[in-house]
């Protein structure tokens, strides 16, 4: 049998797609705006610090003698801390982040957590992502936002996860969020052949199959979206050029793609990226310092790039992690799973400063920090004061908002 490449065929199929490019821009213009001025152009970037970031070595309570007693080997020396005030300061690897803080671009939310904290990575990650500490919820809080925000239904990029696996936070009831690890490799080889491309489009929507499966509708939808999305996205973002270099780290690459998507005006409202692993049971210092340095440098490059394109004021970035870590270090120069910790709000809309109660190392839950601010209050703040949506239906309860956002 003679071999020839059926896929290396005509490229004419691509011309069909090109005509649909402007549908998004049109749909966007018709979107019912939320109550907040400018909210329709805003974007939230969520950074998941996977594994449980140790808050106490991230923003260090250098004014608290007890900190140095319980962390004799991994405590960060007072002289090394990038001091914010006489109580706390940033980890020394976060120099560029501290500079952003000094410019008023960063709000530090201290002592964030939830009642009856769970120490399991998976359950606590799920709790933060679904915003449901008391029950098993199927959808993520940003997924529910996407479902309820009256966004254009034909836009495949209302939310984008820069990840190989769709994170639970983006799982929605009515919206399929593409998970894209990197833009190269995001395309079907068969779309290079017009005839195969057309047949594919029809075959994946076969809905008269001689069997049933709980996954069938999902498979068909994802196959369809994978084809449409990958045909369109590379062209839609091709015109964007970053203003400067990003660090050559996975997070640097993810945020570079995030800036490109934001700057290409696809109507993307929520973006997810991840960084880690912060699960520092053993030899914490080297790992966490490296990860915090990478975080700091990538965020700096991201906002420099956004600012150069005039997008910095319409992008709010928020970090989260499933829990903080045990106050005292363990025998392996690491820390075990803990409870309350801190998160950062960065960029658009942020009123820089320190918010929430300082961590109290003397009054703990069996060695774990107590929480002062429920994380759902931070979510409510982001939903109401940034994305312009009522938070109660999404969070399934009313939570007070915080002054950290304008």
């Amino acid at each position, binding site marked *: *049998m003679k*071999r020839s490449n*059926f*896929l290396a*065929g*005509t490229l*004419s199929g691509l011309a069909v797609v090109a005509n649909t490019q402007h549908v998004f821009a049109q749909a966007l213009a018709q979107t019912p705006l939320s109550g907040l001025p400018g909210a329709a152009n805003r974007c939230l970037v969520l950074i998941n610090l996977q594994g449980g970031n140790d808050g106490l070595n991230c923003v260090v309570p250098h004014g608290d003698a007890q900190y140095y007693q319980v962390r004799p080997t991994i405590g960060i020396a007072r002289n090394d801390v990038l001091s914010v005030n006489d109580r706390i300061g940033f980890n020394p690897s976060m120099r560029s982040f501290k500079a952003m803080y000094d410019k008023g671009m960063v709000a530090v939310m201290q002592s964030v957590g939830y009642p009856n904290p769970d*120490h*399991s*990575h*998976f*359950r606590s990650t*799920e709790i933060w992502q679904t915003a449901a500490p008391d029950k*098993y919820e*199927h*959808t993520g809080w940003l997924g529910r936002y996407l479902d309820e925000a009256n966004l254009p239904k034909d836009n495949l990029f209302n939310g984008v996860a820069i990840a*190989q*696996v769709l994170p639970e936070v983006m799982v929605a009831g009515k919206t399929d969020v*593409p998970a*894209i*690890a990197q833009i190269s490799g*995001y*395309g*079907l*080889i*068969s779309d290079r*052949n*017009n*005839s*195969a*491309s*057309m*047949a594919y489009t*029809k*075959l*994946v929507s*076969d809905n*008269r*199959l001689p*069997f*049933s*499966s*709980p*996954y*069938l509708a*999902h*498979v*068909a939808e*994802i*196959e369809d*979206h*994978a084809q449409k999305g*990958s045909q369109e996205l590379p062209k839609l973002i091709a015109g964007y050029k970053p203003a400067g270099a990003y660090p050559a780290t996975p997070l640097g690459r993810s945020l570079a793609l995030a800036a490109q998507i934001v700057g290409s005006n696809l109507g993307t409202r929520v973006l997810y990226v991840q960084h880690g692993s912060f699960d520092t*049971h*053993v030899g914490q210092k080297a790992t966490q310092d490296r990860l915090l340095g990478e975080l700091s440098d990538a965020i700096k490059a991201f906002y420099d790039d956004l600012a150069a394109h005039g997008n910095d004021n319409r992008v709010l970035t928020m970090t989260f992690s499933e829990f903080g870590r045990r106050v005292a270090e363990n*025998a*392996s120069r690491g820390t*075990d*799973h803990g409870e309350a910790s801190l998160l950062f709000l960065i960029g658009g809309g942020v009123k820089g400063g320190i918010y929430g109660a300082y961590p109290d190392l003397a009054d703990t839950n*069996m060695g774990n920090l107590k929480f002062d601010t429920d994380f759902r209050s931070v979510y409510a703040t982001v939903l109401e004061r940034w994305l312009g949506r009522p938070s109660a239906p999404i969070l399934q309860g009313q939570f007070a908002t915080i002054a950290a956002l304008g």
Partner: protein
Amino acid sequence: MATALTPRTDVAGIYRPAGHLDIATALAPYKGLWDARLAAHLFRRAGFGSSPDEAAHFASMGVHAAVDGLVNFAPTDGLPAPDNLYDPRTTLMQYFQVGMRPGALDDMTKRKIGQEVRQNERQSIISLQRWWLNRMLVTPAPLQEKMALYFHGHFTTAAIQKGVSPVMVYNQNQLFRNNALGNLRELTWQVSIDPGMMIYLDNARSDPQHPNENYARELMELFTLGIGNYSEQDIRESARAWTGWILRPRDGTVQFVPFRHDSGSKTFLGQTGNWAGRDIVDVIFKQPDSAVFFANSLLNFFVYNGPEPQLVDAVAKLIRKNDFNLKPVMSTLLRSKVFYSNRAYRALVKSPVEFTIGTYKALGAKAIDDRAQRALLQMGQILFYPPNVAGWPGGANWLTSQTVIARENFLASIVNSPMMDGVDWMQKMPLKASQAAQQLVATVLHGDASAQSVAQLTDYLNGAGTSALGMLSGENYPERIRGAAYLTMAMPAYQLN
């Protein structure tokens, strides 16, 4: 404080099939029609798929002989062993002279050693992955490898991070293989003192003054009981009981050192005693929840997702009756009515490993090629590197834009490879487009496509959408058949197990 476990059906991306479970007959032996379609179903679940010839062969045997063959497999010692596994000590020996202290090396050299070790370990793991994938493809005991894959996702350990060496990865993999249809209690104990696991979940670093809770927690949460069936206090007490097990620095073997063991009294799951690690495992397996947990896990992996509590209870009863011996449990499950019910058929999403090896199987390949590992990376399943200690989440979570594109592109690439020249059934395709389309759907999908889709394939074979429209002919035949084979495998049914 342990409460009855309710198996979760509301986990993100995990869907239970619609319809009604007939619990009264669910585990009764299946006595209905047995054909190549159901034989292929059995081998997709209990193995890694089948070639058309194999499916026909198993169909001719009947369901009971086919299942008997799967669970009573002969020893597989004759299969090839992996290539030599890299031992970091060989690199260290090159740099150290006898009597030299580690401090004698400068930082630059230490960094260089570190890089060399990591690189060699990575290469060794890649070669070990290739060995396992090939074993899945050619083994005469597919259920043994399928159970090893199940246990790898259940009792997770990730290579290299934290210092889990290729030798440890291989030994753990062999542990799963050797206990494939063995006793779950015994396997859990063996896993607990497996060097790779002891490093991955930190028991090797625990001591009585600061017991490390990582293993104690995951042992109950992810391996045996499930969340909500123990207290935080139980975790702390279990962590104390596990102290004393160390890895000997000389050779990495496991040793119990009494003076590093907390021999005081512990109250664990309501029972008080001077418990050590083995006691912890035994106490856990006395909890009714442990059988429920494994029943739920096995049903999710082999039958369908989100199994009903009644079905879970019935399988849990079976597990307890057999004192956690898996062979009779799997033997019952794989010949049960519920396993062959319409609700279970194509009710799971193929994992990337199932998708990839199943494709090589369908093509009758004797070995995987370079595509497999690259594709698995892009599809989101790298053997020996589970995403976290909970393993791969499965279900709809396997399918995102990125991973679906990786799946389709793997197929597109393989149909254009020289491998296709050796595929028997591809050589015997009819020349008439409609017949070729029928035959592709029958061979690759066991008929799981609609008449409309067969018509679409026929149109494609006849040149629809090309500038040089023309019926299937001798000239365009090879190219179009390859294209149609790709399109058949790109249909939704092929993503489902």
